[in-house]
């Protein structure tokens, strides 16, 4: 496969004649190869979910984390290179903590997302640094007029606010599914179940390794604190997810049967 960016992709400080910065785009590829991360902004909170692909059977369950708490009322889900993501999480925690020290209140979503975005962007400006291979989904529930907020910060430093967004392997199909949701009425509980359904449906049993579902939320039910969803809800979501995946499979089988019938006639 011929490389599109030959000659212009050696450093983040170089533009191509078409105006692209290839290193930043390649960083995006690192995100596209990781497990799906989905976030939904609900009426009463934000829900984040990750399809954690388990590369090694020896891994202790739940020891591998992709969703991190960055302050009392905000959480960051990492899609892409996890070590890069951890660096962002540390930076976000520092920003949140210093904001609290200086201004006395929890860091608002707008400010935290911009701080993370500026940090990510800074690494795209120099030849001697490589961009973060991470797309992070930031969920915040602060006391501002905006209420619950979901932001996505891409490797380029672009940061936008979303009703629902997905990154990673199954992101194309996940985004299609997310567009069908009614964001005016969806609750955090429904959002959690919906994320599980989407992740289970999109997980490719054949191509991908087994996975664990990680679900967290910041909502009224959790007192606006970022926490992993309660075990009962997690179990309910996993059950709903498995059922949705089975329904999906059986639909495919029915289609095959119809095709066969047509052949015979």
């Amino acid at each position, binding site marked *: 496969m011929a490389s599109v960016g030959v000659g212009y992709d050696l450093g983040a400080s170089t533009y191509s004649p078409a105006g692209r910065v290839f290193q930043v785009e390649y960083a995006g590829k690192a995100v596209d190869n990781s497990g799906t991360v989905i976030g939904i902004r609900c009426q009463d909170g934000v829900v984040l979910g990750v399809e954690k692909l388990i590369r090694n059977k020896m891994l202790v369950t739940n020891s591998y984390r992709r969703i*991190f*708490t*960055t*302050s*009392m009322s905000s959480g960051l889900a990492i899609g892409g290179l996890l070590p890069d993501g951890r660096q962002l999480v540390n930076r976000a*925690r520092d920003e949140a*903590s210093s904001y*609290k*020290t200086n201004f006395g209140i929890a860091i608002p979503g707008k400010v935290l997302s911009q701080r993370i975005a500026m940090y990510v962007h800074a690494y795209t400006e120099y030849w001697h640094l490589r961009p973060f291979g991470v797309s992070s989904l930031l969920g915040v529930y602060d006391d501002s007029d905006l209420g619950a907020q979901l932001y996505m910060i891409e490797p380029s430093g672009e940061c936008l606010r979303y009703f629902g967004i997905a990154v990673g392997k199954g992101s194309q199909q996940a985004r299609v599914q997310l567009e069908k949701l009614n964001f005016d009425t969806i609750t955090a509980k429904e959002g959690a179940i919906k994320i599980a359904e989407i992740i289970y449906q999109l997980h490719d049993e054949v191509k991908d390794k087994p996975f664990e579902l990680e679900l967290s939320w910041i909502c009224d039910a959790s007192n606006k*604190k970022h*926490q*992993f969803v309660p075990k009962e809800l997690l179990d309910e979501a996993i059950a709903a997810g498995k059922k949705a995946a089975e329904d999906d499979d059986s639909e495919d089988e029915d289609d095959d049967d119809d095709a066969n019938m047509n052949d015979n006639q």
Partner: protein
Amino acid sequence: MSYKHQPITHTTRPIVTGTSVIAIRTKSFVMMAADTLGSYGSLARFHDIKRIINIGGNTILGAGGEISDFQKVTQYLQGLEEENFCYDDDVSLTAPEIHSYLTRICYNRRSKIDPFYNQFAVGGVIEDGIGNKKEKRTYLGYTDLFGTTFTDNYVATGFGAHFAYPLLRKGYEDLNGADMTVD
């Protein structure tokens, strides 16, 4: 170089002060009481100040002395708690840890003649052991602006120390090792 100027001093007298905090400890609980007054010298100026706070869900911290220093200490500790909340590993500051931390801060500040002008009472419930062998025990300690530290069944700060200790000593003596109920 001129040595005629006075040595550098920091604030060594308190302005807005709280006084007594009285705390007792039994086998099953720790109880702490304080008034909500902030005095401005002899003027009873601020009537609704919190002088006992909760840290990490299992510890209470009460202080007498300079209110602004207590508020600063509170901010430090709550910042540490928020850090623990972020790490999300079921680890939280316990009473003996907070007691030790405060003692370190207090002693180091006094060594710079820049004290946190407070007397602290730290109390809480701790769980020892792992898995099935967990045991709960109570803890109550005192630390102050000098960095003096001790733990005991009863602790008091400010004027309370003068009035309450004799009464509390008698009370514990009369109990003779029996446990108390919340009533």
